[in-house]
C-alpha cells in the first residue's frame, strides 16, 4: 500500500465523520432537505477533487463548511440572475410539505429561522449549533470576528422576537449577554 492510499482513507474517514454536521448546516441554509442533499453532494465532489489543497491535520470540518457555503452562495447568485425574483425564492422556501420541516414541535422554530437574513442565519447556526468558535465561523464566512458576533446577537434578538420567548440561553462562548439580562431582571 502506498502512502497516498493511506492518506486517501484518512480523508474519506474524516469526510464521513463530518457529513451529518455538514448536512445539518446545508438544511439550515437551504431550508429544505432535497436542496440540502444536492448541495452536500456538490460539496463532496468539490472536496474530493480538491483534496490535495486540504492540509492534513488542519480542521477538515471548517474546510468542508467553507466549500459548502461558497457553493450555496454561488448557486444562489446564479439562480438570482436567472429568476430575478427574490420574492419567488422566498416563497419557495415555504412551499414545502410539512414533513420537510421535520419534527412537529420544531416547525415553528424552523419557520422563524427561515425568516432571518442569510448572513444572520448562518452565523447563529455556525456558533450556536454546529459547534464552531467565533474565530472559526469568521474564517468560514470570510469576515471579521466582530461581524460574526454582531450577526449572532441580531439573529438571537430577532428569533426571540419572532418566537415570543425570553432569552435566558446564550450561544457558544458568549455568556455575557445572558448574565446581564438576569442581573437586570433578577430583582
Amino acid at each position: 500500500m502506498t502512502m497516498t492510499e493511506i492518506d486517501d482513507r484518512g480523508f474519506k474517514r474524516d469526510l464521513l465523520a463530518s457529513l451529518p454536521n455538514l448536512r445539518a448546516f446545508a438544511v439550515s441554509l437551504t431550508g429544505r432537505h432535497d436542496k440540502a442533499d444536492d448541495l452536500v453532494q456538490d460539496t463532496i465532489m468539490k472536496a474530493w477533487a480538491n483534496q490535495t489543497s486540504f492540509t492534513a491535520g488542519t480542521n477538515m470540518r471548517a474546510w468542508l463548511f467553507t466549500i459548502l457555503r461558497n457553493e450555496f452562495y454561488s448557486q444562489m447568485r446564479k439562480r438570482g440572475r436567472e429568476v430575478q425574483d427574490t420574492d419567488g425564492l422566498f416563497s419557495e422556501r415555504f412551499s414545502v410539505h410539512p414533513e420537510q420541516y421535520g419534527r412537529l414541535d420544531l416547525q415553528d422554530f424552523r419557520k422563524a429561522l427561515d425568516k432571518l437574513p442569510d448572513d444572520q442565519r448562518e452565523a447563529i447556526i455556525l456558533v450556536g449549533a454546529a459547534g464552531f468558535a467565533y474565530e472559526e465561523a469568521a474564517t468560514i464566512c470570510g469576515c471579521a470576528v466582530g461581524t460574526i458576533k454582531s450577526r449572532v446577537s441580531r439573529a438571537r434578538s430577532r428569533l426571540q422576537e419572532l418566537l415570543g420567548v425570553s432569552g435566558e440561553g446564550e450561544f457558544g462562548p458568549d455568556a455575557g449577554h445572558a448574565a446581564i439580562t438576569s442581573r437586570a431582571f433578577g430583582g
Partner: protein
Amino acid sequence: MSDETRKKQDMTISHHEIKPGSMPPNASISRKLREFYDAVQEEGIPDRFLDLLEKLEEAERNTNSVKVK
C-alpha cells in the same frame, strides 16, 4: 456533605426535570436551535453519499492504475 443531604438534593433536581415533549413557553432559543440542528444530524448519512464516495474512490483507483501502466 452527608449522603442523606446529597440524596435529598438529587430528589429535588429530579423533581424539576422537564418532562419529554412538554416544552416550556420560555424555552431558550439556543436549546431549540440545537434541537433543530441535532434532529437533522441524527438522521445520519443518506446512502446516496456513501455510494457517491464509493464511486469517487473507485474512479480514483482506476486512474491511478492507468498511471502505473
